[in-house]
């Protein structure tokens, strides 16, 4: 087998089958996937949650993860944010001709280990290869299905006045980890992406509170953008306190140097949890008992004022608006 992915690997013929047998099935294989039927057949009872996402991240490998891990976590976390127990994933690959096979194998191994950790199965997939220059190395799409347990009703529109706003850990880790790898900005930084499957974390919370109102993962656009989305969806005001927001030292250092605000930097292993005030302490305790929630903290609350907007109480006691991200996050000198 050549050490690069060729166009023929995506054409459905012998080379395609070799690719699947040699590099995909050994890592992902399970009774459903191994059938290699045109479609997977599942039996599920209850309310089904269904989501899809595509991953085009560059660089493909970054401190703390890679596009494979990201593709699994992102979709699982979207299901988890709806309160669903993630069950099955599809995995579609679009690979640029010339992509190293060793890298592909590494990514698939990562998909496999992340899926195992999360307890989900990849049960159907697709592989295409496109001309050199038509894709940035590799693009991945994953779709996921899960089941929402009875009694769980989580939606971005359910935040109520008095609810507490909780973040499950430090913000900005993923965006800074990726930025530190990218061309043009070189730092030697011990910041690692927080990319993680959070379905276990969510089930821990749901065990102690059946009244969680909102869950959302603050990915692109960061915490600020996600809070703005929730404020609009719930037609509620959100007030957070600058002093309470957890940020790792190295992330803060990088943000200070580059002139970035950690509230706008992407996260891939965190959740915003909006819970009724009487449940907030229990929820934070449950989060801190899970390895992905050990820095969980209440950062604010839902208010009656400034509906649809997010305000921040600064260290000096003034309050100012926090808008969502506009344009791209760019380093600045001024």
């Amino acid at each position: 087998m050549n050490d690069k992915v060729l166009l023929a690997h995506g054409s459905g013929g012998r080379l395609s089958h070799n690719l699947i047998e040699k590099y995909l099935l050994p890592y992902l294989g399970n009774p459903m996937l191994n059938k290699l039927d045109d479609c997977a057949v599942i039996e599920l009872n209850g309310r089904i949650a269904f989501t899809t996402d595509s991953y085009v991240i560059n660089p493909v490998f970054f401190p703390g993860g890679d596009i494979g891990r990201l593709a699994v976590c992102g979709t699982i976390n979207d299901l988890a944010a709806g309160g669903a127990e993630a069950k099955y994933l599809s995995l579609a690959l679009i690979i640029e001709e010339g992509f190293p096979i060793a890298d592909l194998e590494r990514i698939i191994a990562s998909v496999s280990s992340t899926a195992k950790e999360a307890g989900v199965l990849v049960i159907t997939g697709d592989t295409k290869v496109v001309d050199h220059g038509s894709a940035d190395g590799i693009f991945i799409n994953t779709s996921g299905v899960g089941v929402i347990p009875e009694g769980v009703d989580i939606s971005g529109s359910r935040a109520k006045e008095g609810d507490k706003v909780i973040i499950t850990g430090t913000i900005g880790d993923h965006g800074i980890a990726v930025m530190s790898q990218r061309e043009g900005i070189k730092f030697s930084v011990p910041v690692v992406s927080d990319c993680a499957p959070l379905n276990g974390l969510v089930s821990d919370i749901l065990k102690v509170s059946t009244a969680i109102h909102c869950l959302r993962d603050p990915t692109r656009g960061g915490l600020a953008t996600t809070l703005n989305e929730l404020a609009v969806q719930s037609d509620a005001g959100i007030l957070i306190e600058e002093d309470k927001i957890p940020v790792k030292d190295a992330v803060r250092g990088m943000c200070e140097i580059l002139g970035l605000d950690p509230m706008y930097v992407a996260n891939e292993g965190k959740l915003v949890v909006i819970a009724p005030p009487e449940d907030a302490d229990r929820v934070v305790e449950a989060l801190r008992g899970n390895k992905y929630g050990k820095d969980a903290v209440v950062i604010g609350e839902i208010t009656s004022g400034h509906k649809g907007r997010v305000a921040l109480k600064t260290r000096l006691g003034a309050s100012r608006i926090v808008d969502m991200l506009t344009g791209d996050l760019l380093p600045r000198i001024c």
Partner: protein
Amino acid sequence: MNQGRFNQMKYIDEYRDTELGKSLIKRIARLSKKPVKLMEFCGGHTVSILKHGIRQLLPAHIEMLSGPGCPVCVTSVAEIDKAVCLARKHGAIVACFGDMLRVPGSNSSLQRAKAEGADVRVVYSTQDALEIARQNPLKPVAFIGVGFETTAPTVAASVLHAFTEGLTNYYILSLHKLCPPVMKTLLVSHEIELDGIICPGHVCAITGSKPFEFIGREHDIAAVISGFEPLDILLAVEMLIKQIENGEHTLENAYTRVVRDEGNRQAINIMNEVFETSASYWRGIGIVPESGLRLRDKYRGFDAEAAFEIEQPSLKENPGCICGEILRGVKKPYDCFLFKDVCDPEHPVGPCMVSAEGACSAYYLYGGENE
């Protein structure tokens, strides 16, 4: 951000202390009797003031005006067009600071040119630009030099490095501007009557305090050199108010840990070795003599304008956009009809909205709850 559970960042966190800040605010409120107009000249001060909510915490009769100290905001449409021309027409690798990417020229921007296939790269430092030049010996690499006296020495240093190394593909498009001349122009115009000026602490780190002494001496306006953390700014306001209430008008330094009277001699020498002053066009203000920097003859080989034929575009600004008046402190962002209506960070009309430290951008993003 959360201080209690994570380590302090030295020389930053101490100057963000809540209790000390509240005391300063209390003191300012106690000392300040007359209504006053203070200008924070520098965009970085505007951002810090709004980000920490300082305007809201000061008594209402202290009016804070933003000045033209935002090097991106005062970059003219014509200057942006030159940068875009380098990228599009001459196929140069254009390296620029992130701030410059989205500033609108007459019909394009560096970001637009990049999307259309031009090789535009955001860099953090001229050192990155030099590295790009070393790695691409057959392509011209043009660095868009923007910034005041804080940044100009770093660009000058890069030219000296290129000179010593014998790099022949490294160029600078110098759009650098100087602070004291434009401050003089503003004060001489008497368009607004100021009582005090918060002077740019990092410009002064390079220039020293002397170039700003004219403010008190020639214009009877109180001036204080200020750092950028909230306590630095509040201390500067306190010192200005004290002066004003006592009828004094001198230049004081509230940023002694960084600013020395004589400035940074090495940086000044390097800047003067590579650059000489020239007239420069400031968006919203017009041509100000001796307020720009251009490369000296000895370093003409690194001058992008000398090496490449760049169209000299018109200096026409976008009608309806009052960035000029905002930059001179005459109007505030919410006085502009376009503000938040047509002009927002996603669709900026003028540079005050595009630049991260432009007054309009800062007011849009951080303006208090009720603005």
